[in-house]
């Protein structure tokens, strides 16, 4: 194999030997120390074989006295390949650039795969990674896998194990969540208060109730204990269960100004473009020539299959605007502030339809020319929560 490889490197020719005394010529060639290989008898007076270029040039003296003609029927090897390639420099340069481009692109992460999470969504993990700069198109050299594993474990306490690795251009994140004991499997536990409240109803299914209607409880207080005394008076441990309803209060606030600034378009527009490659952005065209403007951006990013390529073209449309200040009536501002307070409560899980009582306070903001509305709502719901004793 090495001999063949060497022959290719130095170059060889395929020769045709035609005549009557072919064996004699072959013996002269071999006897001269010139190796010939793949020698094949084609017809009674023709043989085909391969010989190095250097040795072929020395064949002429060996032909004397023999009725044999030698001709070249083929050429192979690096010298011929190099000569062919030298006539197509553009192809060579293009191939070299392509190889360099592939090498460069292989230094980035192009796919991120997240597996193993049930309670924690892949999107949540992906968002956290993106905040740390780990996203499609990120350079592999800037990714610290140990740091990411620790960060995920710290950021998501529900996780018990995280594995991160990079295979080629694919980044794989595998997570394992903690298995919390199933309620039915837990032998011992109490019912505790999930939040502060005033007890309105206690319905114990199992266990010993420690609170009565009218008690005030804080978050974490035991409402129904898992301990009980059996018929013989012995203290036993069990799993408490029951419903404990209480009046709970939530508060929030909202603010609104007595004036608002509105942007009115003047009808003047300006368009420019930008090209983003990875983190680098190249702006094309002049910046918007307006003092005040509203802008809109439309981005086009090519994809191959489901994979987004790491470059994008964005069209920016700027519309000149004029800002005008308009006054808002106090009643309108109050209503707007109150609505914002309701929205804050809704975001923390309060169902407006379940509210039994509300208390609204107002406070005028003299320095900011607005109003702040405080909202306290009262609801009644089950605050019982099972706390296992492990």
């Amino acid at each position, binding site marked *: 194999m090495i001999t063949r490889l060497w022959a290719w490197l130095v170059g060889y020719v395929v020769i045709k030997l035609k005549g009557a005394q072919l*064996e004699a010529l*072959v013996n002269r060639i071999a006897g001269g120390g010139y190796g010939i*290989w*793949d020698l094949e008898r084609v017809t009674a007076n023709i043989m085909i*074989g391969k010989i190095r270029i250097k040795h072929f040039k020395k064949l002429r003296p060996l032909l004397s006295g023999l009725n044999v003609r030698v001709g070249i029927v083929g050429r192979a090897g690096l010298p011929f390949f190099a000569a062919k390639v030298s006539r197509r420099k553009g192809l060579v340069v293009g191939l070299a650039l392509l190889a360099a481009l592939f090498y460069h692109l292989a230094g980035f992460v192009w796919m991120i795969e997240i597996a193993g999470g049930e309670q924690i969504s892949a999107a949540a993990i992906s968002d956290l990674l993106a905040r740390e700069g780990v996203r499609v198109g990120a350079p592999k050299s800037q990714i610290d896998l140990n740091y990411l594993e620790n960060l995920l474990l710290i950021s998501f306490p529900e996780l018990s194990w995280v594995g991160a690795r990079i295979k080629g251009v694919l980044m794989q994140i595998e997570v394992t969540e903690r298995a919390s004991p199933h309620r039915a499997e837990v032998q011992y536990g109490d019912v505790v208060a999930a939040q502060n409240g005033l007890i309105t109803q206690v319905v114990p299914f199992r266990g010993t109730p420690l609170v009565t209607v009218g008690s005030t409880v804080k978050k974490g207080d035991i409402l129904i204990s898992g301990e009980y005394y059996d018929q013989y008076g012995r203290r036993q441990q069990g799993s408490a269960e029951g419903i404990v309803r209480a009046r709970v209060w939530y508060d929030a606030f909202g603010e609104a100004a007595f004036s608002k600034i509105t942007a009115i378009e003047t009808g003047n527009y300006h368009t420019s473009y930008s090209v983003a490659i990875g983190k680098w952005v190249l702006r094309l065209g002049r910046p918007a020539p307006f003092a005040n403007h509203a802008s809109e951006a439309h981005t086009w990013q090519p994809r191959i299959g489901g994979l987004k390529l790491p470059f994008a073209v964005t069209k920016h449309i700027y519309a000149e605007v004029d800002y005008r200040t308009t006054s808002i009536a106090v009643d309108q501002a109050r209503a707007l502030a109150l609505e914002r307070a309701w929205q804050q409560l809704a975001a923390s899980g309060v169902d407006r339809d379940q509210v039994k009582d509300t208390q609204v306070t107002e406070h005028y903001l003299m320095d900011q020319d607005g109003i702040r509305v405080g909202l306290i709502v009262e609801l009644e719901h089950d605050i019982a929560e099972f706390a296992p004793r492990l």
Partner: protein
Amino acid sequence: MERGLKKAAKKLVSTMELPADAILDLPRITMIGNTELMVENHKGIEKYTSTEVRIRITGGHMAIHGRRLIVRFIDKDDLKLEGVITNIDMGDQ
């Protein structure tokens, strides 16, 4: 005299267990299955067709019969034959 020297050399080779191919200029023939035959220390090709290859060796010749015989490589000392080998005859001068 020459025959006497050859006889003495043969005796020396067998007594001292020396390599006969190197001392007595004999060919070394290596065969792999019936598809490959390597002859080291040959003296040239006498006849080559796709069914018969006759090679000159010290003390005579050897004729290889078969089908689709190709000289895979030949140089001053070594010759490698490939094909379907059916028969090998050794003949002296």
